[in-house]
């Protein structure tokens, strides 16, 4: 109950009791309370005139890195003798040094500056309001306001870059890159033999083939390497990512998406990202550092969601260029098989990176024969699913999350560097 009401009621009661009983002493007891109320109203805070400026030492950080938030408050209004300032932090950010709440006295025209350090897990954190609560010294009369102090912080996922991922989409773009384009021309890998054309370097001439025909000279042709369209699909469906005791494997999927996106962009490809969960969050394909930043921002915001519409895996094909390379990152469930096969049959090259939910959940469970039996059954089901996908022509990488992602992907998908391929192809000739 408000203290003003308590003291008001007591004053009222004492006055009534004093008047009815004709006792001046009882009436006199109301005097200190009345004076208290009077003091509270007299020294109570007036309308706020606070001017607040927020600065962040960095607006994009890696998870666990500190960022310093500085708030500069100028009092353009009247004297505030008991002012509580509270910077309202979104869930996920924690104060590591200093305090996000201060209790101060602020004279008219005075400037108060305060800093504190926060750390956070992956996410997007809008910093919108500072809560100011001013009271008189006796704490009787108060005023509370949420003062807008806009700011934002991105805690971007960070993962080691995966280099030289071997993909072979059916269609590539026109720019030179590292993806074999299924087209003859200048390159490293042997592609075929054709008739010599003026301008062909002499060392391309295939003397053995030319020796068979007296009137023609033949040249070797190499496979062109170009950039490709790559679509990364991150599966954010809650029901398959959230396992027992609220533990989620989704962070591993985000890490994989970060690592792959970084690797594909670094190789010059045009990369897009689709986060599939409560709703579809689509980052339009693009090249370069700007696109990398856009994808990282999308991944920072990525969260689990549940929706009846997206409970099954239905990938909207119109978002991705025809015959492009797709990478799905998902723990998978048995019902996803049909959707993936349908997608593959539409002409897309599909790689599925599947963080293994069985080994992930098993690491948190006590060792017992029941748990082991259950794990075996689920693992067999999963292996059958993965095997069926492989038989449908889908490349599958089963990732035990206890192992570093880059090691698993390098072993499963990497192609040797160009110089090594050149040596190998040279030795083969």
């Amino acid at each position, binding site marked *: 109950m408000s203290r003003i009401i308590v003291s008001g009621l007591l004053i009222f009661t*004492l006055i009534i009791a004093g008047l009815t009983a004709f006792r001046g*002493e009882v009436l006199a007891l109301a*005097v*200190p309370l009345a004076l*208290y109320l*009077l003091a509270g*109203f007299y020294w109570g805070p007036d309308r706020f005139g606070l001017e607040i400026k927020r600065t962040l030492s960095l607006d994009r950080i890696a998870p666990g890195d500190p960022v310093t938030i500085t708030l500069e408050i100028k009092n353009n209004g009247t004297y505030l003798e008991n002012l*509580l300032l509270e910077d309202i932090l979104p869930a996920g950010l924690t104060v590591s040094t200093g305090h996000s709440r201060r209790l101060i006295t602020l004279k008219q025209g005075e400037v108060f500056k305060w800093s504190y350090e926060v750390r956070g897990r992956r996410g997007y954190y809008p910093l919108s309001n500072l809560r100011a609560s001013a009271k008189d010294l006796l704490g009787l009369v108060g005023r509370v306001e949420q003062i807008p102090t806009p700011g934002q912080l991105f805690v971007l996922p960070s993962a080691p870059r995966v280099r030289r991922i071997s993909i072979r989409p059916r269609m590539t773009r026109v720019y030179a890159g590292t993806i074999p384009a299924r087209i003859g021309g200048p390159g490293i890998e042997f592609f075929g033999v054709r008739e010599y054309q003026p301008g062909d370097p002499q060392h391309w001439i295939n003397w053995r083939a030319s020796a068979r025909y007296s009137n023609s000279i033949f040249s070797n042709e190499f496979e062109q390497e170009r950039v490709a369209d790559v679509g990364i699909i991150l599966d954010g469906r809650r029901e398959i990512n959230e396992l027992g005791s609220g533990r989620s494997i989704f962070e591993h999927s985000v890490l994989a998406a970060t690592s792959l996106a970084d690797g594909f962009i670094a190789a010059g490809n045009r990369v897009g990202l689709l986060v599939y969960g409560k709703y579809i969050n689509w980052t339009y394909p693009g090249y370069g550092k700007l696109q990398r930043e856009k994808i990282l921002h999308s991944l920072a915001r990525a969260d689990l969601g549940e929706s009846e519409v997206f409970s099954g895996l239905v990938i909207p094909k119109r978002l991705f260029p025809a015959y492009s390379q797709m990478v799905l990152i998902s723990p998978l469930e048995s019902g996803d098989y049909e959707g993936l096969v349908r997608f593959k049959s539409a002409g897309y090259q599909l790689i599925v990176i599947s963080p293994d939910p069985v080994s992930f959940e098993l690491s948190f469970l006590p060792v017992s024969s029941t748990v082991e039996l259950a794990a075996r059954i689920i693992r067999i089901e999963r292996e059958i699913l993965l095997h069926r996908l492989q038989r449908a022509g889908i490349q599958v990488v089963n990732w035990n999350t206890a192992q570093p992602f880059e090691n698993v992907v390098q072993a499963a998908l990497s192609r040797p560097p160009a110089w090594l391929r050149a040596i190998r192809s040279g030795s083969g000739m």
Partner: protein
Amino acid sequence: MIAVSLFLSTFLSIAVIAAGYFNAGMDIQAFGLIGVGVVWVLIQIKWTWVASVGLSIITLAAALGLFYELPMWLMVAGFLFAFMAWDLAEFKSRIKQGCEEDQLNSLTLNHFARLGLVLALGFGIVTLTRFIRLRFNFEMAALLTLAGVWGLSLLVGRLRRGE
């Protein structure tokens, strides 16, 4: 300092009022008040709202004591200590929200100064009523009270507007 003052004022308010009741031979009421005091102190550790209940009970006990003509100074002192405890309970919860970098000592001293001023003024006026006695009939007293309340509100309004 605040915690000690809060405990002392709560303890003193109960002790002083209960002493008044003991002196008058009203032992049951006195023990009842001591029970209230114990509950007040215990609950106050976690919930500050109990101070409002405590103040209300002590105010009623002091008013009843005055009605039964128990020693006035004990009743007034008990009421003022309870009033102080009520104020300090709120102040303690407020100050807990600050951090070590804040100038909490200066804030606490200013608070005590203002509370002291209010209590001293209140006590002074209560003391004056012992010596200045005017006789009014009920209608006159009620009229004066209403006029007093109205006058106080006007005064507060003017003071706040800085006139």
